[in-house]
């Protein structure tokens, strides 16, 4: 349950609230004056729909709230609502996201700026409610913008930013905001919630323009194009994804200006990287044990830092390469797997390997898999990864083999 706290520490034109990641998302959706939302139950993302339902029941939000009969319909309903000009929200977790897979593939080429929350969850089978990132990652090649957030505050801010970015005519692509199941969806922290006036200043109305499906604009959408035009249409998607980079920079700059807060670097968080010899990388709430582990190692004189990527699509290749080139070794901790991939690594490790390929300076890179199915990532896991990175730095090269941490062998 959302609890409003004393406004003592609030930023100007903000109020403070003690809320979970899912509740933070619902606060942002209310401020964004959402028009149509579809729900279907699956843990852990469904807490956001529970929060929205309460908002609607209490009259804080006026939106068409539809409980669908499955995720496929859930995503199709909002896709169509968006084409007639409605601001829409949807979401899922794990195999629920997979059930909607067909709809996830059609949304980007239709240029539907849907915003979704993925409460990251291990895929069946076997059953597990805990976090893995493979669910959201399956759409990484399809034209979705993907971002991983770490705190309830970041969830709230990113939801507002996501509408601004997705609905920018230069982009018009869907965005999935990933939140680690349980660790973020269900954990409450104190958040700065901006006033509606601030949000109205930051977030313009959704204008579908000449793509609006309406009797006054009788267009035919998504005809049968075949080999005559498909490659050109794919190219348009590619251009939109490339344009998104500048739009993201612009949106965050404007967010900071309007809200008086927000990250300088939209793309990734850097923690103690300034003098770091070893840079560890991890997405989402894994940053917490990593940060504590890094502080412990710093106390022992080990110069370890963290980069926590936010945006995964578009991938911040140049910025990340620049930030990583100064390290003596890099350790990527994936909370996902990619069976049979190069070096049997996780997805993030191989993306970074690919990004570094043309870099002038390529520090040794170690790949780790840890915390699958929501298993706790321990300080020992983090320390072990850092120590192995130190050994690679000393040797000047890395064994490309992937290391599983905290797994019973």
């Amino acid at each position, binding site marked *: 349950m959302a609890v409003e706290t004393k406004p003592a520490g609030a930023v100007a034109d903000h109020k403070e609230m003690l809320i979970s990641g899912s509740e933070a998302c619902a606060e942002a959706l209310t401020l964004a004056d959402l028009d149509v939302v579809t729900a279907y139950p699956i843990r852990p993302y469904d807490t956001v729909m529970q929060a929205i339902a309460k908002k609607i029941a209490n009259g804080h939000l006026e*939106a068409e709230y*539809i409980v669908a009969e499955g995720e496929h*319909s859930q995503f*199709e309903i909002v896709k*169509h609502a968006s084409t007639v000009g409605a601001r829409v929200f949807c979401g899922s977790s794990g195999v629920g996201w997979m059930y909607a897979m067909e709809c996830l593939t059609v949304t980007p080429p239709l240029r539907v700026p849907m915003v979704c929350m993925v409460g990251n969850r291990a895929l069946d089978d076997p059953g597990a409610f805990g976090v893995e990132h493979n669910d959201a990652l399956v759409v990484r090649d399809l034209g979705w913008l993907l971002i991983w957030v770490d705190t309830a505050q970041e969830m709230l801010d990113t939801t507002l930013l996501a509408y601004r970015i997705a609905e920018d005519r230069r982009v018009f692509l869907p965005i999935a905001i990933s939140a680690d199941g349980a660790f973020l969806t269900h954990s409450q922290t104190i958040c700065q919630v901006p006033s509606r006036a601030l949000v109205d200043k930051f977030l313009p109305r959704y204008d579908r323009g000449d793509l609006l*499906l309406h*009797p006054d604009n009788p267009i035919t959408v*998504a005809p049968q194009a075949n080999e005559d035009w498909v490659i050109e249409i794919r190219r348009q998607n590619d251009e939109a994804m490339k344009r998104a980079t500048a739009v993201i920079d612009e949106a965050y700059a404007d967010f900071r200006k309007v809200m008086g807060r927000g990250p300088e670097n939209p793309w990734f968080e850097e923690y103690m990287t300034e003098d770091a010899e070893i840079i560890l990388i991890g997405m989402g709430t894994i940053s917490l044990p990593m940060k504590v582990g890094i502080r412990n190692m710093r106390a022992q004189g080990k110069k370890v830092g963290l980069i926590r990527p936010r945006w995964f699509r578009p991938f911040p290749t140049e910025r990340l390469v620049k930030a990583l080139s100064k390290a003596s070794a890099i350790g990527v901790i994936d909370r996902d797997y990619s069976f049979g991939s190069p070096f049997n690594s996780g997805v993030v490790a191989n993306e970074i390997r690919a990004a570094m390929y043309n870099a002038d300076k390529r520090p040794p890179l170690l790949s780790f898999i840890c915390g699958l199915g929501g298993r706790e990532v321990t300080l020992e896991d983090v320390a072990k990864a850092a120590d192995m990175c130190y050994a690679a730095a000393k040797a000047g090269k890395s064994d490309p083999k992937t290391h599983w941490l905290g797994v019973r062998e």
Partner: protein
Amino acid sequence: MADTAFTNATQILEPFKGVKKVTIEEYFTSGHRTCQGCESALVMKLMVKAAGPRTIVLGSTGCMYVANTTYYTTPWVVPWMHTQLGSSGSAALGTAAGLKALMKKGKMKSEPINVIAFCGDGGGADMGLGAISATLTHKEYNSLILLYDNESYANTDIQLSGSTPYGANTTFSPPGSVKRLIHTRWKKNTAGMLAAGHTECRYVATVCASYAVEMMNKVRKALTIGGPTFIHSLDPCPKGWDYDPMLSHELGELAVETGIFPLYEVENGVVRHYGKTKAIVEGRPRKPVREYLLKQGRFAHFTEEDLGYFQSKVDEMWDKWEIPGVIPFWKERPGAK
């Protein structure tokens, strides 16, 4: 925020009083490339003619997507959008919900806009049945789902669907030297099932374009009555059924006259039989099913035994069903074992 002028009203579309009173304007015109004798193309044309210009049409994957909307040559005069094979229900619901939200909140001019989503039998009676069912329970959103039933996945090479008649030859059920019949399932009673299972859906009807004015008037009634509605159209298909394209209308008539495809509507729970079907209910004899079946190559492998079985199943529908041709189940008869 809320615009008090918004009433969720529908367009009032009075029935056409005879073929000479039908409006002249077309909203589905040249540009499509359907087969000669395609009844489904005619259904599209009549459907949107009946609906008029303030209409949005959503089309799920199937013949009427692939053959109709080649890039740059759309036949649709009204706004049209593709939806996924199993998504006609979701497309209707989402479009209606989007319009409603925007009009209610004063973000779009408030006016009744028809929302029609169509699907083939594969998209409607098979894959999309769940989504259609869900949409028919959302009584606050005005839309029509029209199922054009050509009794196979005709666009992908004539594969059997849950709506393909018993025994028919399709590319997934070819008669062979050892097994004569591969497809031995009886066709789903889609309209009856949807009418029976969705008690707040105000209108479910069956149509056949052989009876064009009746068909258009059912579309107009479905759009006027409000809430989610459903129409099932039987569309003879020269390619899938294997007959001379000039016989499309005649086969539609025969499907009705043999009692295989009854024409009816369920309006606010009241069942009304139409035309030749009404005559059958009132005692006029049905034509034997062989007159219909043997005009089609897809039944050319039928033996007398197959024809007899088919006839017995149709007889059962008329002699035993609780509501003939609409709702199956029959009460136990005294003395029966």
